[in-house]
């Protein structure tokens, strides 16, 4: 523990905010040079801080560096007795955070640099605005990953949502772009609502178990570990755990663009391309994955018991398998949607949704480190792809339709190579970064199937869906590549002459990211000959101290697996037995992994060659597939469903507005109160005639009333 540890997390988080303030306040007057310097400098400084921490981790013997937590003070604390809500400004730096910070600040800084080039032709004001939003986003994302409790995470969670809204609708002069921003915001609110509910449930749980709620990850994970052991938590508390986990997952589907809330992400492509790269590929959308991994121990035992109202039926919904199912479906659905897109950014957007689905699938299968690994490699290659796409769009003066591109390989070599390498990584071409991470996830799923003695077919189906998604990914990647860079150009001569070549500021991030997209996967080389109990690769090793959730202990895992084998074996001594199980397990484990890998490689190559054959040589047919193509293009019509549903809601709210707002409040309560007072005053005025006799009558009537009252109430 170093003295620097106390202020370092704070400094890491605060640098982008500082940049945000300076750029936002002075950037407009000081010009682009100043803005870019400050706004790039801020995340770069953060990156340097993170890097020092990372180096310290690397050069400390493992096991010694366990991360640290810093409480900067109490945020708020109230309640008494067994119900104290005590929230700290708690920052936490551990292995998971470190990795996330590296990705966020590293990729983020590169995208900041890129943005300076990309946005160079806008006015100073807009430039400063854009850069300060980017900085704010970075700050919020860093709060999200360094926060030590759910509430700080939620601040970042909401903050990135806000920045997402601001940046998607950056060119708000165009209505549809502003609308896209609002759509992102509103769809995210649905998830956030569930997230808040989840937090409330956790607070209740903490009150019951500890009498003091801090919402810190450690405590939440501890509750999860308690829940795994029988008879510690009551039935109701178990229900709360399940419901809270489900709520958190719904929150994650909003932020991480899963079924059914992914619809905002494709529309979010309305923002400038660096935004898409930063927010909608590399960082923000990964928040949901990060959050689940962060409180993985809480998710592991979570089973949501759905009691059907008015009946005795109840269904047990285990949350993690649900996560995996949703992830697999999202991965497949988005991949089919990506195949049918013509807009280059839409393809990338759906591929992002698809890849997030993979991550969810990994998380759901309990392969948490694999999910984080894929998160990291995805950040590299997807940022690379987006930036390259941005460079293409920039070069073609805003043209996004792939139908109007083609043959750009010679014109934009850097973009081409960036796209090529990024695409191969995305497709999971062997030895590229995406290959390792995607494979790790797929194997994680397959492993669950194996672990269940091949009884749980669900995992097999999920695995197969994932594999088919991999095939589609390879296909649409090459489709995009072919349509954009190969074949004959479909640009006019005039357009061709005015191609805008990317400058240094745009090239440099591309080159750096290219390197990482290619070699990034090697930090997570699959453990070909691992020791038992060590799943094995570097990334898993690094993250294992941070990941609290374990699907089940290795021992149980193996025993369950081995039981079947033992039945066929001769009886051995205990030691020998254990030894033998080890070996056999190894054998099966590795066989499974190798088979899974081979299968996915074959599928990827199949997809790639199909894409190559169809789109590299022949000019693309204007998608004439008709209805089915259109069905895929609109992502299975989920948006249509929402439009219809919202349309009904809209009709209903208009009705409500008319009846309740106008009728009840405006006409009846507001105007009615005015009318009532007018009526009363007219009534009272009628009494004030000034005639003495009239007044005498009032007095007499009053006297009669008082007499009657006195007689009535006299004892």
């Amino acid at each position: 523990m170093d003295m620097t540890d106390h202020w370092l997390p704070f400094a890491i988080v605060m640098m982008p905010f500082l940049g945000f303030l300076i750029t936002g306040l002075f950037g407009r007057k000081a010009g682009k040079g100043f803005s870019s310097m400050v706004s790039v400098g801020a995340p770069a400084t953060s990156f340097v801080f993170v890097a020092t921490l990372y180096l310290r981790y690397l050069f400390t013997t493992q096991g010694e560096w366990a991360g640290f937590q810093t409480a900067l003070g109490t945020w708020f604390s109230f309640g008494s007795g067994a119900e104290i809500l005590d929230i700290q400004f708690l920052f936490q730096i551990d292995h998971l955070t470190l990795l996330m910070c590296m990705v966020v600040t590293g990729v983020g800084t590169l995208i900041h640099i890129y943005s300076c080039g990309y946005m160079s032709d806008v006015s100073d004001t807009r430039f400063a605005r854009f850069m300060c939003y980017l900085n704010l986003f970075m700050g919020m994302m860093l709060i999200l990953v360094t926060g030590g409790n759910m509430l700080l995470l939620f601040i970042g969670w909401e903050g990135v949502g806000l920045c997402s809204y601001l940046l998607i609708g950056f060119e708000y002069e165009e209505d549809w772009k502003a609308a896209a921003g609002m759509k992102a915001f509103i769809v995210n609110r649905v998830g956030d609502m569930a997230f808040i509910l989840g937090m409330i449930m956790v607070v209740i749980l903490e009150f019951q178990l500890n009498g003091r709620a801090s919402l810190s990850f450690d405590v939440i994970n501890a509750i999860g570990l308690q829940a795994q052991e029988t008879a510690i938590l009551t039935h109701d508390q178990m229900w709360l755990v399940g419901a809270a986990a489900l709520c958190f997952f719904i929150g994650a589907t909003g932020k991480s663009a899963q079924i059914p809330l992914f619809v905002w992400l494709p529309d979010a492509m309305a923002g400038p391309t660096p935004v898409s790269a930063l927010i909608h590929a590399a960082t923000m959308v990964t928040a949901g994955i990060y959050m689940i991994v962060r409180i993985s121990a809480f998710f592991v035992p979570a089973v949501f018991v759905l009691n059907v109202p008015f009946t005795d039926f109840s269904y047990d919904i285990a949350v993690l398998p649900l996560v995996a199912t949703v992830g697999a479906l999202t991965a497949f659905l988005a991949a089919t949607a990506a195949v049918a897109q013509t807009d280059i950014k839409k393809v990338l957007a759906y591929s992002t949704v698809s890849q997030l689905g993979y991550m969810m699938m990994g998380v759901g299968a309990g392969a948490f480190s694999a999910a984080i690994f894929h998160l990291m490699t995805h950040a590299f290659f997807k940022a690379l792809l987006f930036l390259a796409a941005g460079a293409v769009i920039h070069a073609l003066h805003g043209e996004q339709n792939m139908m109007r591109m083609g043959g750009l390989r010679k014109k934009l070599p850097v973009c081409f190579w960036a796209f090529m390498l990024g695409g191969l990584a995305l497709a999971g071409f062997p030895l590229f970064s995406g290959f390792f991470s995607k494979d790790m996830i797929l194997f994680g799923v397959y492993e669950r199937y194996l672990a269940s003695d091949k009884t749980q077919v669900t995992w097999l189906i999920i695995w197969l869906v994932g594999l088919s998604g991999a095939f589609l990914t390879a296909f649409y990647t090459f489709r995009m590549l072919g349509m954009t860079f190969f074949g004959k150009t479909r640009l006019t001569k005039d357009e061709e002459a005015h191609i805008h070549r990317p400058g240094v500021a745009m090239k440099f991030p591309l080159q750096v990211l290219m390197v990482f997209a290619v070699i990034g996967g090697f930090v997570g080389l699959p453990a070909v000959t691992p020791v038992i109990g060590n799943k094995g690769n570097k990334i898993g090793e690094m993250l294992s101290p941070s990941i609290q959730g374990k699907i089940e202990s290795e021992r149980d895992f193996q025993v369950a697996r081995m039981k079947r084998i033992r039945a066929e074996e001769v009886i051995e001594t205990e030691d020998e037995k254990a030894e033998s199980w080890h070996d056999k397990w190894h054998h099966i484990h590795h066989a499974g992994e190798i088979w899974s890998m081979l299968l996915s490689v074959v599928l990827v190559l199949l997809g790639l060659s199909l894409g190559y054959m169809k789109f590299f040589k022949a000019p693309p047919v204007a998608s004439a597939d008709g209805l089915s193509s259109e069905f895929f293009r609109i992502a299975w019509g989920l948006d249509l469903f929402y439009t219809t549903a919202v349309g009904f809601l809209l009709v209903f709210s208009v009705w409500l507005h008319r009846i309740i707002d106008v009728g009840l409040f405006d006409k009846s309560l507001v105007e009615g109160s005015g009318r009532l007072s007018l009526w009363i005053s007219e009534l009272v005025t009628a009494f004030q005639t000034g005639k003495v006799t009239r007044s005498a009558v009032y007095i007499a009537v009053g006297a009669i009333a008082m007499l009657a009252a006195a007689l009535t109430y006299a004892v």
Partner: protein
Amino acid sequence: MAGFLFWLFGAIAVICAILCVTRRNPVYGAFFLLLTLGSVAVEFLLMHSPFIAAMQIILYAGAIVVLFVFVIMLLSLKAEELGEEPPMTTKAGAAVLASCIFVLLSLPVFSGQSFAGKTTEDGKFIELNEPVKLKTIFKVVAMRRGLSVEDVKNIKIQEGPIGNAAPGAQEFSPAERKRNRARYDVMYLASVLCVDDKGEWTPGVRDELVLSMGLTDHDAIDNGIEEVEQSMKSVEDGKGSKARNGLESAAARKTVLDSMKRKIKVRSARYGSLEHFVDFLYSRYIVAFELVSILIFAAIAGVLVLARRKGFMGLETDGEERRGGMYL
């Protein structure tokens, strides 16, 4: 006699009042008002308030009605200046309201309930000249002497002559005997409370006794005393009760009764007299008395201002110049 006079003058008062408010000519109104006020003065007199009656005559008849008449003469109103006669509907409405008030006011009389919800022990109003009952005397005295309400409530005396226990008379049942015993106890208590060793009224008690019961009617006092005497006699005749009786000799009792009679007469003559008034008006009610005089002074000032000012309530009349300040 008193009752007859009361109803007679009451009827006169009501009739004259009705005539007073229904006459169109205010002179007749003033005349009937005078008659009404005079009848009410007689009622005051009947209620043993001679001073109030005198005041009624002097103040109302002598001052107020004269003032009315004076103003009527001063204005010497012509028929058209009397104002329009109100329409029948107005009169009918006023009659309805007035009868409502009458019914509500007189309801307690018929239902035996007073406004404050306080009733006498029999649930009826005490008649002003009702003969005082021994029981009541004893109860009041006992309360005054600090016995608790419960003790007082437990005192039970049958009305009418206390059953004689003379030899040869009818035999008493045990219950009756017990009841008689209780009566004797009360008599004993009363004698102890009211009369000292020398047969004199205990100082203070007598005034309380007299005034508490409003013993102002001579008949009533006589009745009460007679009853006391009778009970004393019964006590004397009663067997085995002598020892309990504080007043053993007939002479002593005679002294007590005479004294009682005398004192009560003196006391009742005092009630409502000027002497009685002066006693408290210049002592306990001196502040109120002075306030009334200030009020009268203020009224005089107001009258002068109103009567001497030109125009009405500061409103200008045609062409006359208004002068500032008070005209005192």
